[in-house]
């Protein structure tokens, strides 16, 4: 199955969501069937308004070994974090 039905990663934009979120993965023979399958596996309770599927093989991920090099430095430098600005009430999604 793994050869004929490659793995796809599924991203769903929810009813009130602003962005597509990764929800899981599935197997399908091609992109169209992956969308069909994603609809059946992940969206049957009105979860979504949009589906993206992408072959798992096409995703490049950061390596856990690079964690400190990529993510650590900013932690000790509070001036890098934009937390000093009072935000207006109306901005709910930031």
């Amino acid at each position, binding site marked *: *199955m793994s050869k004929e*039905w490659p793995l796809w990663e599924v991203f769903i934009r929810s009813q009130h969501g602003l962005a597509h979120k990764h929800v899981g993965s*599935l*197997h*399908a*023979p*091609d992109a*169209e*069937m992956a969308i*069909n*399958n994603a*609809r*059946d*596996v992940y969206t*049957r309770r009105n979860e979504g308004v949009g589906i993206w599927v992408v072959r798992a093989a096409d995703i490049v991920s950061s390596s856990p070994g690079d964690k400190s090099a990529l993510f650590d430095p900013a932690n000790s430098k509070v001036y890098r974090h934009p937390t000093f600005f009072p935000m207006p009430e109306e901005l709910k999604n930031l």
Partner: protein
Amino acid sequence: MSAPSAPSTHSATASYVRRLGDNALILSQRLSEWCGKGPALEEDMALTNVALDLIGQARLWLSYAAELEGTGRTEDQLAFLRDAHQFHNLLLVEQPNGNYANTLVRQFFFDVGHYFQLNALSQSTNPRIAEIAQKSLKEVTYHVRRSSDLIVRLGDGTELSHRMLQQAVDHLWMYTGEMFSGDAIDVAVATDGTGVAPESLREQWMQHVAEILQAGTLQMPAADAWMQSGGKQGRHSEHLGYLLAEMQFLQRAYPGAKW
């Protein structure tokens, strides 16, 4: 007013609506037999989703049919306390699941007919029928898309999947004609616009089926082949009795059981 043998409009509508419910109920029962046995997780979930869509539609039709009968029978009694000869589903939907190709082809043939039927019924002069049809049509639009996609992929797949699909097409073809042959009930409901004449759906069905089979490199059997019939009149294949025995066991063994 009308010939003695012609059904009254009211009872014709009840029979017509019950037939629609029977198709959905029996096919739903068949599909649910796959639960946990599908060839892949994705297919397993898709089939059970379709089964749940159909059971929902069956409930809408059968509860309306029970209302129209006006004898106090409920949707549950219609589903669980009728014998095979009192069911008026198409022979196609009661056919055994067989292998996955049989299940898919049965689904494809039915979905296409179901789609065009509901499409016409959503314009019914009976507002309840139109409402149920419009609601069901949303689900069935997806069913027909899914089953058509799969027919193309498996027909145009491996040598084995192509052969199995072709065998299923040849085997189930004789059950498709019944979708397009009307009887007195169909005439009665088509005349006053509550229902649709089955014959009027045939051309659209043929065209879509031919297109998809061709895309799947499959041979379409002869359009004028001999066809089985009788399901709509309560004359069924040997398979329905077994299906009902399983489906109705609980209500038969423990009458009135609730959970």
